Protein backbone atom coordinates (compact mmCIF):
# COMPACT_ATOMS: atom_id res chain seq x y z
CA UNK A 1 0.00 0.00 0.00
CA UNK A 2 2.82 2.37 0.91
CA UNK A 3 4.37 1.84 -2.52
CA UNK A 4 1.14 2.79 -4.26
CA UNK A 5 0.70 5.94 -2.15
CA UNK A 6 4.32 6.89 -2.78
CA UNK A 7 3.85 6.44 -6.53
CA UNK A 8 0.64 8.49 -6.43
CA UNK A 9 2.45 11.31 -4.59
CA UNK A 10 5.20 11.28 -7.23
CA UNK A 11 2.64 11.30 -10.04
CA UNK A 12 0.68 14.25 -8.62
CA UNK A 13 3.89 16.20 -7.99
CA UNK A 14 5.19 15.51 -11.52
CA UNK A 15 1.83 16.56 -12.99
CA UNK A 16 1.60 19.90 -11.23
CA UNK A 17 5.27 20.57 -11.94
CA UNK A 18 4.41 20.20 -15.63
CA UNK A 19 1.71 22.82 -15.05
CA UNK A 20 4.44 25.32 -14.21
CA UNK A 21 5.01 25.69 -17.97
CA UNK A 22 2.02 28.02 -17.77
CA UNK A 23 4.12 30.44 -15.68
CA UNK A 24 6.61 30.72 -18.55
CA UNK A 25 3.96 31.10 -21.24
CA UNK A 26 1.65 33.49 -19.38
CA UNK A 27 0.14 35.41 -21.07
CA UNK A 28 -1.55 37.29 -18.23
CA UNK A 29 -0.51 37.57 -14.59
CA UNK A 30 -3.69 35.72 -13.59
CA UNK A 31 -2.57 32.64 -15.58
CA UNK A 32 0.75 32.63 -13.78
CA UNK A 33 -0.81 32.79 -10.32
CA UNK A 34 -3.18 29.97 -11.34
CA UNK A 35 -0.21 27.68 -12.04
CA UNK A 36 1.23 28.58 -8.64
CA UNK A 37 -2.16 27.82 -7.08
CA UNK A 38 -2.20 24.40 -8.76
CA UNK A 39 1.30 23.69 -7.47
CA UNK A 40 0.03 24.60 -4.00
CA UNK A 41 -2.90 22.17 -4.01
CA UNK A 42 -0.83 19.46 -5.71
CA UNK A 43 1.83 19.91 -3.04
CA UNK A 44 -0.82 19.53 -0.33
CA UNK A 45 -2.06 16.28 -1.91
CA UNK A 46 1.49 14.94 -2.26
CA UNK A 47 2.27 15.79 1.39
CA UNK A 48 -0.87 14.03 2.61
CA UNK A 49 0.00 10.94 0.56
CA UNK A 50 3.59 10.97 1.85
CA UNK A 51 2.39 11.32 5.44
CA UNK A 52 0.40 8.10 5.11
CA UNK A 53 2.93 6.22 2.96
CA UNK A 54 5.96 6.90 5.16
CA UNK A 55 4.09 7.10 8.49
CA UNK A 56 5.15 10.69 9.17
CA UNK A 57 2.06 12.27 10.77
CA UNK A 58 3.82 15.65 11.02
CA UNK A 59 3.63 16.01 7.23
CA UNK A 60 -0.13 16.61 7.62
CA UNK A 61 0.69 19.73 9.65
CA UNK A 62 3.03 20.84 6.87
CA UNK A 63 0.18 20.34 4.39
CA UNK A 64 -2.14 22.42 6.58
CA UNK A 65 0.42 25.24 6.66
CA UNK A 66 0.90 25.02 2.90
CA UNK A 67 -2.89 25.29 2.40
CA UNK A 68 -2.93 28.46 4.49
CA UNK A 69 0.08 30.01 2.70
CA UNK A 70 -1.29 29.13 -0.77
CA UNK A 71 -4.45 31.06 0.05
CA UNK A 72 -2.45 34.07 1.26
CA UNK A 73 -0.33 34.11 -1.92
CA UNK A 74 -3.34 34.59 -4.15
CA UNK A 75 -4.95 37.20 -1.89
CA UNK A 76 -1.67 39.14 -1.85
CA UNK A 77 -1.48 38.87 -5.65
CA UNK A 78 -5.00 40.21 -6.13
CA UNK A 79 -4.40 43.05 -3.66
CA UNK A 80 -1.16 44.03 -5.40
CA UNK A 81 -2.70 43.67 -8.85
CA UNK A 82 -5.67 45.90 -7.97
CA UNK A 83 -3.33 48.55 -6.59
CA UNK A 84 -0.99 48.60 -9.60
CA UNK A 85 -4.01 48.55 -11.93
CA UNK A 86 -5.47 51.58 -10.16
CA UNK A 87 -2.10 53.39 -10.45
CA UNK A 88 -1.85 52.59 -14.16
CA UNK A 89 -5.37 53.79 -14.94
Amino acid at each position, binding site marked *: *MADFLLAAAGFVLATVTLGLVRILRGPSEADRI*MAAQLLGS*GGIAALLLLAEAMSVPAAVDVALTLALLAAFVSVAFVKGFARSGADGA
Partner: protein
Amino acid sequence: MSFALDALTILAVSTGAFFFLAGTVGLLRFPDALSRLHALTKADNLGLGLVVLGLLFQPEELFAGLKLVTVWLLTLLAGATVTQLIARTARPGGAQE
Protein backbone atom coordinates in the same frame (compact mmCIF):
# COMPACT_ATOMS: atom_id res chain seq x y z
CA MET B 1 -11.87 -6.30 5.08
CA SER B 2 -8.47 -4.71 4.86
CA PHE B 3 -8.30 -5.76 1.20
CA ALA B 4 -11.62 -4.00 0.46
CA LEU B 5 -10.43 -0.84 2.23
CA ASP B 6 -7.16 -0.92 0.28
CA ALA B 7 -9.11 -1.28 -2.98
CA LEU B 8 -11.27 1.72 -2.06
CA THR B 9 -8.14 3.73 -1.26
CA ILE B 10 -6.53 2.81 -4.58
CA LEU B 11 -9.72 3.69 -6.47
CA ALA B 12 -10.21 7.09 -4.78
CA VAL B 13 -6.54 8.13 -4.88
CA SER B 14 -6.24 7.12 -8.54
CA THR B 15 -9.34 9.14 -9.42
CA GLY B 16 -7.95 12.10 -7.51
CA ALA B 17 -4.63 11.82 -9.34
CA PHE B 18 -6.56 11.71 -12.61
CA PHE B 19 -8.28 14.98 -11.71
CA PHE B 20 -4.89 16.56 -11.03
CA LEU B 21 -3.76 15.39 -14.46
CA ALA B 22 -6.95 16.73 -16.06
CA GLY B 23 -6.57 20.06 -14.25
CA THR B 24 -2.99 20.43 -15.45
CA VAL B 25 -3.86 19.54 -19.04
CA GLY B 26 -6.73 22.02 -18.91
CA LEU B 27 -4.47 24.72 -17.46
CA LEU B 28 -2.01 24.16 -20.31
CA ARG B 29 -4.44 23.65 -23.20
CA PHE B 30 -7.55 25.78 -22.59
CA PRO B 31 -7.71 28.93 -24.72
CA ASP B 32 -8.53 31.73 -22.27
CA ALA B 33 -7.95 32.64 -18.64
CA LEU B 34 -11.47 32.00 -17.37
CA SER B 35 -11.71 28.46 -18.78
CA ARG B 36 -8.24 27.74 -17.39
CA LEU B 37 -9.54 28.87 -14.01
CA HIS B 38 -12.40 26.38 -14.41
CA ALA B 39 -9.90 23.55 -15.02
CA LEU B 40 -7.85 24.63 -12.01
CA THR B 41 -10.78 24.48 -9.58
CA LYS B 42 -11.57 20.89 -10.64
CA ALA B 43 -8.05 19.82 -9.69
CA ASP B 44 -8.18 21.81 -6.46
CA ASN B 45 -11.52 20.63 -5.15
CA LEU B 46 -12.13 17.18 -6.63
CA GLY B 47 -8.53 16.01 -6.93
CA LEU B 48 -7.58 16.87 -3.38
CA GLY B 49 -11.01 15.78 -2.10
CA LEU B 50 -10.68 12.31 -3.61
CA VAL B 51 -7.11 11.91 -2.35
CA VAL B 52 -8.29 12.81 1.18
CA LEU B 53 -11.24 10.41 0.83
CA GLY B 54 -8.89 7.63 -0.23
CA LEU B 55 -6.59 8.23 2.75
CA LEU B 56 -9.58 8.15 5.14
CA PHE B 57 -10.11 4.46 4.27
CA GLN B 58 -6.72 3.63 5.76
CA PRO B 59 -7.00 2.69 9.44
CA GLU B 60 -6.05 5.61 11.65
CA GLU B 61 -7.24 7.43 14.72
CA LEU B 62 -10.28 9.66 14.62
CA PHE B 63 -8.22 12.78 15.27
CA ALA B 64 -5.87 12.12 12.34
CA GLY B 65 -8.85 11.58 10.02
CA LEU B 66 -10.48 14.81 11.20
CA LYS B 67 -7.24 16.66 10.47
CA LEU B 68 -7.21 15.33 6.89
CA VAL B 69 -10.79 16.54 6.41
CA THR B 70 -9.80 19.91 7.89
CA VAL B 71 -7.04 20.30 5.30
CA TRP B 72 -9.56 19.63 2.54
CA LEU B 73 -12.17 22.01 3.99
CA LEU B 74 -9.57 24.78 4.30
CA THR B 75 -8.54 24.24 0.69
CA LEU B 76 -12.18 24.32 -0.44
CA LEU B 77 -12.83 27.57 1.41
CA ALA B 78 -9.60 29.20 0.23
CA GLY B 79 -10.04 27.90 -3.32
CA ALA B 80 -13.58 29.24 -3.64
CA THR B 81 -12.57 32.68 -2.34
CA VAL B 82 -9.35 32.95 -4.31
CA THR B 83 -11.01 31.81 -7.55
CA GLN B 84 -13.50 34.66 -7.30
CA LEU B 85 -10.69 37.14 -6.70
CA ILE B 86 -8.55 35.85 -9.60
CA ALA B 87 -11.58 35.81 -11.92
CA ARG B 88 -12.14 39.47 -11.09
CA THR B 89 -8.63 40.39 -12.26
CA ALA B 90 -8.86 38.08 -15.31
CA ARG B 91 -12.16 39.59 -16.50
CA PRO B 92 -11.78 42.16 -19.30
CA GLY B 93 -11.75 45.56 -17.65
CA GLY B 94 -11.54 43.88 -14.24
CA ALA B 95 -9.53 44.82 -11.12
CA GLN B 96 -10.86 48.35 -11.14
CA GLU B 97 -13.00 48.10 -8.01
